[in-house]
């Protein structure tokens, strides 16, 4: 029974007008697994993630989390059920401080936020826990600065800190390394390596070094279709994949 994958995607399909962005996608992520999705630009990777997170509704197919069908659940419900995502284009509350952003994630899983009396920033239980995640990503010194004042690299780190703080079972990470320098990428790779095993992760990434170092399994998405799934070694050896990439670039 423990073999049941955490996330199961079956026959997923989504088209915009005449363009098929997701074409009969079957995919699963096991508990504790890091499953990477690679593919050329425009393959429909972000569209896929958006359907998993609930930002987009698929035309056909099904998505289930831990055996529960969530195909038509709205995004905020999926988040409560344990799916979180990071965004390819940084998506944070810029007006609020770094700590506030992370604290919102902690607050979200500590019961109802329909609490009107106690000041949110004085609730030690939430603030302390948020601070541990801020610290973990090396943002301690900037915790009280407005998010808008931080650099792009720091924003990427915040995205991860928030994904961690939400304690979601499944993290959908949409190109977390995008726009990072080599040094920053390496730090983030190390961090994810450390995290591996404790969370299930679906990772979209262009940085092939990072993908092959991190992933337990890799799926290759081309024109909305998954053309191969396997271990990093299998994918390296796969002729279809080589063909798809060579033909593309």
């Amino acid at each position, binding site marked *: 029974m423990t073999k049941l994958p955490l996330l199961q995607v079956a026959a997923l399909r989504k088209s915009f007008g005449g363009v098929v962005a997701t074409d009969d996608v079957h995919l699963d992520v096991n508990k504790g697994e890091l499953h990477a999705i690679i593919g050329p630009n425009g393959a429909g990777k972000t569209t896929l993630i958006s359907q998993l997170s609930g*930002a987009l509704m698929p035309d056909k197919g099904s998505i289930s989390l831990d055996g529960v069908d969530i195909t038509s659940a709205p995004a*905020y419900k999926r*988040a409560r059920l344990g799916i979180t995502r990071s965004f390819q284009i940084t998506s944070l*509350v810029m*007006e609020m401080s770094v700590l506030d952003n992370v604290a*919102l994630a902690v607050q979200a899983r500590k019961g109802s*936020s329909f609490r*009107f*009396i106690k000041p949110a*920033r004085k609730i030690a239980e939430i603030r302390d826990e948020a601070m541990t995640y801020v610290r973990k990503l090396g943002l301690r010194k900037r915790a009280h600065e407005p998010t808008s004042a931080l650099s792009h690299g720091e924003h990427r780190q915040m995205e991860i800190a928030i994904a961690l703080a939400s304690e979601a079972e499944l993290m959908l990470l949409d190109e977390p390394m995008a726009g990072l320098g080599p040094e920053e990428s390496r730090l983030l790779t190390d961090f994810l390596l450390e995290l591996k095993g404790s969370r299930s992760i679906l990772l979209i990434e262009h940085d092939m070094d990072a993908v092959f170092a991190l992933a337990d399994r890799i799926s290759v998405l081309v024109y909305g279709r998954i053309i191969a799934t396997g271990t990093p070694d299998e994918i390296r050896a796969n002729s279809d994949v080589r063909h798809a990439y060579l033909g593309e670039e």
Partner: protein
Amino acid sequence: MLKMNKTGWVTLIGMAALAILPPLLLLNGQAFYMDLATRLVILAIAAVSLNLILGFGGLVSFGHAAFIGLGAYAVGIPAYHSMWGGFDLIASSNGLLHLALAVGVSALFALITGAISLRTKGVYFIMITMAFGQMAFFLFQSLEAYNGDDGLTIDLRSELPFLNLDEPMQLYALSYGSLVLVMLLVRMIVNSRFGVVLQGSKGNAERMVTLGYNPYVYRLTAYVISGAICGYAGFLLGNFTTFISPDMMHWTRSGELMFMVILGGVSTMFGPVLGASIFILLEEVLSSFTTYWHLPFGLMLIGVVLFIRGGLMGLFKGKGE
């Protein structure tokens, strides 16, 4: 040692002035200024409540005058029936009943219109709240039983325990006390867990959804709270003017209310009060010079939009505040 920033000082001095000056002027026989101050304070309550959703929720509601009107009619209609008979259910001069009606009806109207309006975003939201506000305006305009367009004179002010609203000083005390309470209430809400979610949804709704929050319910709740407070301001305004008409709900009134908030500065506690003060004083001063006072007023409005970012309170803010 009490440490306070500039914004805090401005708030304290402004509120102290509002507490002390009008009663002093009244004692010196200047009833006119007392009248002005009462109207100012009541409109400031409405502006503070609008700021809850406009400044902290990012929801540009252009129909808030409707709530003031509903609150005022919640005084006028029962008072009318208690005088002239009919509608026994609510015919009464009991202030507590008026109060409950004002807040309850406004909250209900906010719940229904908010539930529809909040499904939309941006310009749609502005226009729809405007349209719903205007719907209330036309509704009361068409109610011949309450004189429609011509309005209704309130013959009896609300009767409250311990207070006599016929006494200008007592009415002012109630209004001023209410303003202080409403400001504290809004500040409490804004800083609470609910408040941070509301502000987070203003800043980045997509992110909030990803965290498991449903911005819609938080916004709707804030909208209902704001509408209810505004209805309360209407309750006070009805008792102050003792004359109510659909004109109170006209969309231009909503525009004025919004102008007060923006002029003073959104997302601050005292901003709306400052905005309301300047609005009322300016209206008074300009209209004493010329019947065409709307002209400089309009020009000033355009100027504020073009040149003053963050409202007047923004001018008081130090760096890093």
